């Protein structure tokens, strides 16, 4: 049964009752024309309902994330007198920046319908490569450039295998994860190498004013990512590709090239993260990527990006990264068990995925 407003159609059990006035025209006895009209109205009403529901769920998703952030932040503030201090918050921001740099680009990759889980090993391999070059007498900056090119190259390998050989990106990057982590261990002979140089250490542990340098890297990458996603044709193409690859291709989007580009950017971001951590620690080691293996993907999913592609925002990722930062910092300050941190993270992740599921259902 469909009931409409003034000038309305009243349809009961498939039978139109009364007269219909549409667009000023007067219709006579309603038959198949009215039936079509009724179907149109049903469809548009359903669309409106779905859109309302989707907006509501998306709003809940976004605000829910912000709510979680506020709750976690306040809890830490109340629990530790050292938490809400300028130095500590800057420290938390610095710590989480490395993760954030990778999470921004991973968000684009996930929106584009792919995933890259090789980030930790690319970090490690980049770090080890730089370490090897520096110990062989290379200039540290030249070694850094080569390291970044190498990381971008790994991204290209991921992209080409995934896109042109049509291998699932999870499988591809799982493979390259193992390959490059293994190489990092083998090349380094599992040793940690000191990398000196005041200039180089600025990248990781320097500060401008009182703001740590890694924070600037993160902000820079985030702004680029946000502008790209929201305000450029490339960003729209990424969403379109992730949402419906075939439709995007038919619409003239160079989806394959775009996806390879996303993997290259991911490799570059992982390499940059590796450079920053190497600089922070003043040493290169194959283990440096271990803490980032899953946390990058966690941040992206927590931020509302859908593993099915086509959905995700940089603001969501930013809030998710902030949540992870507050949790890491707060747990360290309070000397809470790292197991508990894992439990909290896992719970948030499941909630994020469930919310994504709700959004999808709302669309049906």
């Amino acid at each position, binding site marked *: 049964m469909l009931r409409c407003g003034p000038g309305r159609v009243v349809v009961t059990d498939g039978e139109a009752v009364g007269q219909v006035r549409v667009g000023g025209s007067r219709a006579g006895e309603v038959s198949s024309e009215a039936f079509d009209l009724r179907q149109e109205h049903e469809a548009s009403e359903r669309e409106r309902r779905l859109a309302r529901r989707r907006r509501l769920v998306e709003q809940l998703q976004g605000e829910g994330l912000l709510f979680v952030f506020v709750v976690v932040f306040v809890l830490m503030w109340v629990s530790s007198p050292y938490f809400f201090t300028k130095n500590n918050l800057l*420290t938390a921001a610095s710590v989480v920046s490395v993760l954030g740099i990778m999470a921004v680009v991973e968000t684009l990759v996930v929106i584009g319908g792919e995933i890259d889980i090789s980030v930790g090993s690319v970090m490690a391999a980049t770090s080890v490569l730089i370490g090897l070059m520096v110990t062989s007498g290379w200039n540290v900056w030249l070694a850094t450039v080569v390291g970044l090119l190498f990381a971008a190259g790994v991204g290209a390998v991921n992209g080409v295998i995934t896109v042109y050989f049509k291998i699932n990106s999870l499988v591809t990057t799982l493979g390259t994860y193992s390959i490059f982590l293994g190489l990092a261990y083998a090349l380094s002979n599992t040793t940690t190498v000191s990398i000196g140089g005041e200039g180089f250490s600025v990248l990781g542990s320097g500060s401008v004013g009182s703001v740590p340098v890694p924070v600037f890297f993160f902000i820079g990458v985030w702004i680029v990512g946000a502008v790209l996603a929201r305000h450029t044709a490339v960003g729209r193409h990424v969403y379109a590709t992730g949402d419906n690859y075939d439709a995007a291709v038919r619409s003239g989007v160079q989806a394959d090239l775009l996806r390879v580009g996303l993997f290259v950017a991911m490799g570059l971001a992982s390499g940059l993260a590796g450079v920053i951590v190497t600089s922070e620690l003043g040493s290169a080691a194959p283990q440096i990527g271990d803490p980032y293996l899953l946390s990058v993907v966690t941040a992206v999913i927590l931020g509302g990006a859908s593993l099915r592609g086509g959905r995700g925002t940089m603001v969501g990722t930013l809030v998710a990264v902030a949540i992870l930062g507050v949790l890491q910092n707060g747990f*360290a300050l309070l000397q809470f068990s*790292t197991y508990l941190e894992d439990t909290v993270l896992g719970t948030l992740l499941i909630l994020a995925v469930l919310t994504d599921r709700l959004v999808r259902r709302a669309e049906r």
Partner: protein
Amino acid sequence: MVRHIRGGRARLRVGLVGVAGLVAVSVVGSAGVSSAGVRATAQRAVAQFPAPSKALCKKSHYKIGYDVFSGSQPFANLVTAGLVKAAQSIGCASIVKTIDNLNGPVAVGNLKTLVNEGIGGFVDFQVLAAYQPAIASELKSAKIPGVAIVGANLPGSPDVGASNYGAAYQDGLYMAQQAKKRFPGTVPYVLGGAEPSAGAIIMGRYYGAVAGEKKVYPNLPSSHVIEVQTDGTETTAYNNTLSALSAVPSGSVVLLTGVNDEVTGGMAKAAQTRNYSHALVNSFGGDPYGLSQTCNNSHYVGAWYLEPRLWGEDALVAIMEQMNGQKVQKQVGVLGEEVTHSTAWLHCK
């Protein structure tokens, strides 16, 4: 604790109280460090275990199986190298090595394979306690003696390895003594890099270090003792120490040590990043990274050196003595020693 000296070279050992072992110590080969130099200054106990020598060769040949949890983990590699080299040096023993990559069923399977290959003794370097009873059972049914490099204890067999609590206690004690000398009248903050995921044995290192520090500073307030939880990597140690230092007033005397050299290194770097100029660091383990920091970083008072190569030697002696029908001491742990910038064999510039 037993301390014996023989021929000018002695190694300090302690009887263990169930807290010995090693899981994730990223200690690596002593590149640039003279092994002979190490031995020259190391202290050796001889109560039960002599240094490996041809005197152990009562038979013409000893085929010894060795299963190790990792073929890449630095400390494990050093222990393995020590065992293999010692066997080669005495001439009558050969080591058949298998790697289980932290997979218990594979470890049990490896032992069965080694038994089929005709080994007469088995050295077990495990970190997974859950599978040790199964390994012990296999050994019993094959009537083969075993020895565990802990890691994890092997029921019915002797253990060799480090005294985690004891060594860390000495590490903390030495650093605190240095702090008292350099910063008299101050009450330091002590930050200990722990690794809870590695289990109770490795947690002994954290507790040992704190106990050593409290020995020197008995009235250390609890707010001055900060446990930095890590996963054994330098990166996490750095990040979590940065955060934990928010609870430490700037200008404080800070004492830092961790479960291994890399964790300690990450903690030291964090203190440096946050400009704690009165930070003292004592590395734990003594891998080339920790030793290089000892030479090059003025915040380092030194490194507690666990002598991993000697663990393999101990294991060889323990298994061969059993194969010769001798009884051996149940638990023997290397306490290690402090090496500093002035230690001759480090050759610090």
